[in-house]
């Protein structure tokens, strides 16, 4: 099954490359700098989490990478159009779970005859076999996010952007979805750029954690996460690194109080 989603490695050496990216918004008292000189490379198949306190412009950055907004200065290159998953499931309530996935396929130009089969296959990948005809409101929060993941995967992008996709879920459901995401990532060879404010979640999932400072958002520090898979969020190495990152994050936040 993995082969239908994973494509052979291409000659591009990055899934996303951000160079000197800055973004400011116009406000009543002049322009406000939200992101300042961000440079990030996401390698093909790499899992990167962007971590930061509120006001660090995480979601703004993701919108820029997704192409929903343009940077004020700097350049962003991605290997094709990235898929994006939101904190809210953003599934269309007028379509069934299966048809939501088929719409993504249809907008990519997949012929009608192939759509149904592919949609079923994707639902099976997120362990929702049999949910094809279910309406969105008939699914639980965790199931909705899994359908949203399947819909994002249907775009067959090389890069998956995730904007705090599990923040609204309860701890146990989130735990299950972490396992699912790790499994799907390793099966498909997808690159993931995952935004969160939850330090443990960032360490649990990522190969690399990028910490952003707040107002304006700058890259404060990066950590390589060498903890082998399978990981669990309560594992000692995860907790240890989380503690270290939390201390730095606290320092960043404290700086704002002193200014």
């Amino acid at each position, binding site marked *: 099954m993995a082969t239908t989603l994973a494509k052979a490695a291409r000659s591009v050496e990055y899934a996303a490359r951000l160079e000197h990216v800055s973004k400011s918004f116009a406000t009543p008292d002049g322009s406000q700098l939200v992101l300042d000189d961000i440079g990030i490379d996401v390698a093909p198949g790499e899992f990167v989490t962007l971590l930061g306190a509120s006001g660090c412009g995480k979601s703004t950055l993701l919108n820029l990478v997704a192409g929903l907004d343009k940077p004020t200065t700097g350049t962003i290159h991605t290997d094709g159009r*990235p898929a994006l998953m939101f904190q809210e499931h953003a599934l269309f309530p007028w379509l069934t779970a299966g048809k939501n996935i088929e719409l993504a396929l249809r907008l990519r130009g997949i012929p009608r005859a192939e759509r149904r089969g592919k949609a079923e296959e994707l639902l099976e990948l997120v362990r929702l076999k049999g949910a094809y005809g279910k309406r969105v409101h008939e*699914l639980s929060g965790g199931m909705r996010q899994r359908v949203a993941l399947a819909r994002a995967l249907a775009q067959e992008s090389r890069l998956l952007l995730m904007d705090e996709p599990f923040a609204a879920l309860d701890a*146990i459901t989130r735990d299950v979805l972490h396992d699912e995401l*790790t499994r799907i990532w390793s*099966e498909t060879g997808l690159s993931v750029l995952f935004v969160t404010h939850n330090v443990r979640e960032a360490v649990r999932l990522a190969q690399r954690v990028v910490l952003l400072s707040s107002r304006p958002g700058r890259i404060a520090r990066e950590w390589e996460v060498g903890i082998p898979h*399978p990981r669990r969020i309560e594992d000692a190495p995860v907790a240890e690194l989380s503690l270290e990152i939390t201390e730095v994050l606290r320092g960043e936040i404290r700086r704002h109080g002193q200014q």
Partner: protein
Amino acid sequence: MASSETTTGPTTDSVGAGLDALETTQSRRTPFRKTLVDKIIPPVAAIVVVLAVWQGLITLKIVDDPTKLPTPGAVWGAFRDDWLQGKLLGYIWTSVSRGLLGFCLALVIGTPLGLLVARVRFVRAAIGPVLSGLQSLPSVAWVPPAVIWLGLNNSMMYTVILLGAVPSIANGLVSGVDQVSPLFLRAGRTLGATGVRGTWHITLPAALPGYVAGMKQGWAFSWRSLMAAEIIASFPDLGTGLGQLLENARTASDMAMVFEAILLILFVGIAIDLLIFSPLERWVLRSRGLLVRG
């Protein structure tokens, strides 16, 4: 799938399956008994009370002038006579066919108009306020100019219907489009639904609840406008619809027939709503989980 090192253990799988089972809502059908008690008995009881009060007014001689208030029996007699003479369905059909045809025309005009107002800023600024203002203009006001422009014929009737229903339908679509969640538009854009494809796949289906509400109101306005037109501009060559029936009854001072016509106008309007628009609205809302079962 099993080859991967990171494959989740059986524990997580069963936890996930358990969570799915716990959080999935089960929808079931309402039993007929409940429908009977909740939906059917209350309106029937209300009708019985109204009939009893009506008959009481006459029996107790509170109103004893039959040219002012006929007995329920006399009104029933008027219905029965028209039915036995085979005229009743003819009256209904004349008006209903006009009303529905006019409504369909209003749909054909109101839908693109609503889309234009919703999506093109210049058009919205130009005619948006007029369009919503027109809704509060009683459509009976259009009858005199329509008669002068077009004469006493069916095009006059359709014109009045259109002027009554088009603003409702267009406004319904506009408010439906305005209420589309920005999240759906963003999600649509990341999936590649932009421009016309975005309108077709995302905006229009997302705006459907507001559009259907506009259609419902549009039908009510069509029916009212048509009745106003038929009452004011009654002309033998036009055929007898329910409005003409009411006007003829008034000229003949036949109060039982007046009541017959009013009740027909009321029931036909309600029946079309109950048979077409309410089921359509319920279907749209239920399929989105927006309708809570009582």
